[in-house]
């Protein structure tokens, strides 16, 4: 069988890669891509803790499903914001968005 540590190390690495993407990409859509990677890393952790703990306690899978719902709504609102900003300012580079209201 696969030890639990392999899943945890993989998800820590995926989280760090997503963090790097969020911190260093210029494009706002690419920043949202990094957030998706981080949410997936969290989900791997939750499902593996469910499997390696007591499988009759469904909390891990239930909260993985709730993370799916949160990720879907975050992406829908985030991309709507990006498209709205693009219509008004004609850019999606995060550094160039320096006004609160236009």
């Amino acid at each position, binding site marked *: 069988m696969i030890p639990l540590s392999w899943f945890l190390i993989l998800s820590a690495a995926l989280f760090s890669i997503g963090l790097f993407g969020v911190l260093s990409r210029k494009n706002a859509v690419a920043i949202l891509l990094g957030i998706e990677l981080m949410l997936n890393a969290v989900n791997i952790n939750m499902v593996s803790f469910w499997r390696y703990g007591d499988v009759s306690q*469904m909390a891990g899978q239930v909260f993985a499903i709730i993370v799916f719902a949160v990720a879907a709504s975050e992406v829908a609102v985030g991309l709507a914001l990006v498209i709205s900003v693009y219509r008004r300012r004609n850019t999606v580079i995060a550094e160039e968005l320096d006004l609160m209201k236009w």
Partner: protein
Amino acid sequence: MTVLQIFFLIVALVILGSSLMVVTTRNLIHAALWLIVTLFGVAVLYAVLNAGFLAVVQVVVYIGAIAILFIFAVMLTRKELRDRGPQLNRGWWLNVIIALLTFGGLFWMLQSWNGFSKTAAAFPSSYDALGQLGNALISPNAFVLPFEVASVLLLAALVGAVYIAFNPPSGDSRK
């Protein structure tokens, strides 16, 4: 090393390699396509972990909806066909250090936990995980409240996304 472990290592390499491509590739369409590869690898991991329902939901919701939404957004927000200029911020090497420190901190914290290298008990063959999951989602003694809150959140996000991205016709006095 068993066959399952070799399979896990291959899937992990695919996930890490494609997620590195997501955060470093210049073309955002390619980044969204690499994200699909990453999400599919994670779905395979769910199947390895005996969570078949989550693997299906991962393919349907993440690959079927979220990745396609990303591709739509990229296509709606680009001026030129090719991306010019650097895609990373100036201080990106500092962010590499921050990411490595995060990984190191997580690894140090996890390896000091005494359940770090435990292996799973065999999955009970007569156990109906999907039925238990369905019961847990709608049982008042379990998780019906977070489930309903998640549905309200999805409704709010739907209304909010339509409101924000709605393009008012020209001449509209609303600002």
